[in-house]
């Protein structure tokens, strides 16, 4: 086992770890910007069927990290336990939280991460979204004691798909990667259908002078 690197661990509050955080974050922000994720108009296309870029980028990233980490662990380079321990499952708050983050995403036009990229590229809507996330996350902390057992409900601990389905991790990662590749064809089909439907709807007015 070589990875993770002790000096760079996220729980270490050392200058070296912070420099690493800054470097990784810079790469993260740059890639998000280049993907078009600093723009609300491009991001929300996902939810109107006009462009499924969010699905393609997100799923491809997940698959890449999934196959990569399973592979590194399989050859003994990565101590996977040291990483997975940071991701316990609390089913109910994760389900409700997911619904809220999704609804908030299409309302604001960003997710908490992409809103930071949008704010950095001068988008006022991005800046307001960042402010909203600050307020909302503090508000939840204030509210949490009043919600009783909800925050800890559905506590399943360390539960990962390979253990859940009794399939070796690397094999499952490859199967999901293949499924992703097929699903992109479906995503393309949805985009074409939506584009055709929009063209039909717009056809009667197409003859009139266009105000583009």
């Amino acid at each position: 086992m070589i990875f993770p690197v002790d000096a760079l661990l996220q729980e270490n509050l050392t200058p070296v770890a912070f420099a690493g955080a800054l470097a990784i974050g810079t790469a993260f922000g740059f890639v998000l910007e280049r993907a078009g994720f600093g723009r609300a108009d491009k991001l929300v296309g996902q939810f109107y069927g006009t462009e499924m870029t969010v699905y393609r980028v997100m799923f491809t990233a997940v698959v890449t990290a999934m196959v990569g980490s399973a592979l590194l662990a399989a050859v003994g380079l990565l101590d996977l336990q040291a990483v997975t321990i940071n991701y316990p499952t609390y089913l109910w708050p994760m389900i409700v939280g997911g619904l809220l983050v999704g609804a908030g995403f299409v309302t604001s036009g960003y997710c908490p991460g992409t809103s930071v990229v949008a704010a950095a590229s001068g988008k006022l809507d991005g800046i307001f979204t960042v402010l909203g996330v600050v307020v909302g996350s503090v508000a939840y902390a204030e509210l949490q004691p009043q919600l009783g057992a909800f925050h800890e409900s559905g506590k399943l601990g360390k539960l990962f798909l390979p253990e859940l389905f009794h399939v070796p991790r690397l094999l499952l990662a490859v199967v999901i990667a293949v499924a992703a590749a097929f699903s992109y064809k479906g995503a393309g089909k949805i985009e074409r259908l939506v584009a055709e439907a929009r063209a039909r709807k717009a056809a009667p007015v197409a003859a009139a002078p266009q105000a583009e």
Partner: protein
Amino acid sequence: MERNPNRFWNPYVAGVALGLVLLSAYALTGKGLGASGASFRVGVTAVNAVAPDHVAAVPMLAAATEEGSPLSNWLVFEVAGVVLGGLLGAWTSGRLKLETLRGPTFGQAPRLALALLGGAVMGVGAGMARGCASGQGLSGGGLMSAGAWAFMLCFFAGGYAMAWFVRREYR
């Protein structure tokens, strides 16, 4: 470098690049990427400046001050990097511009109000889920956490369920 604000990376190229950034976070630092956690810590810092006793009395707020300043944290530095990276990306692509992205028939003020509201809803959701689309969906998803996959499915479901109600924002 030629600057074309309408040119983006191919989504699969961007996805692999994003996946490699995430993989290097796992391998080097023992944990994935995140975003909402840093925003939360900025908020806690502000509350702590005016009402430290209150922060100490609320469990989740107090937890963020356990190791001194809430800002002395990996995620905060990572998100500072996201600002730098986003700025660099926008500048080199010609997309660095002060503007409000909205549909041509939708006003600026309501658009900004909805951005604030949507952000607040996401803040609440991310608090519950112990992470946002990055910190839970992407990072937990890449490790095949059952909870993160449930989160991701619900994230898309929540987006599609809400989309019709806010469609005028972008048209």
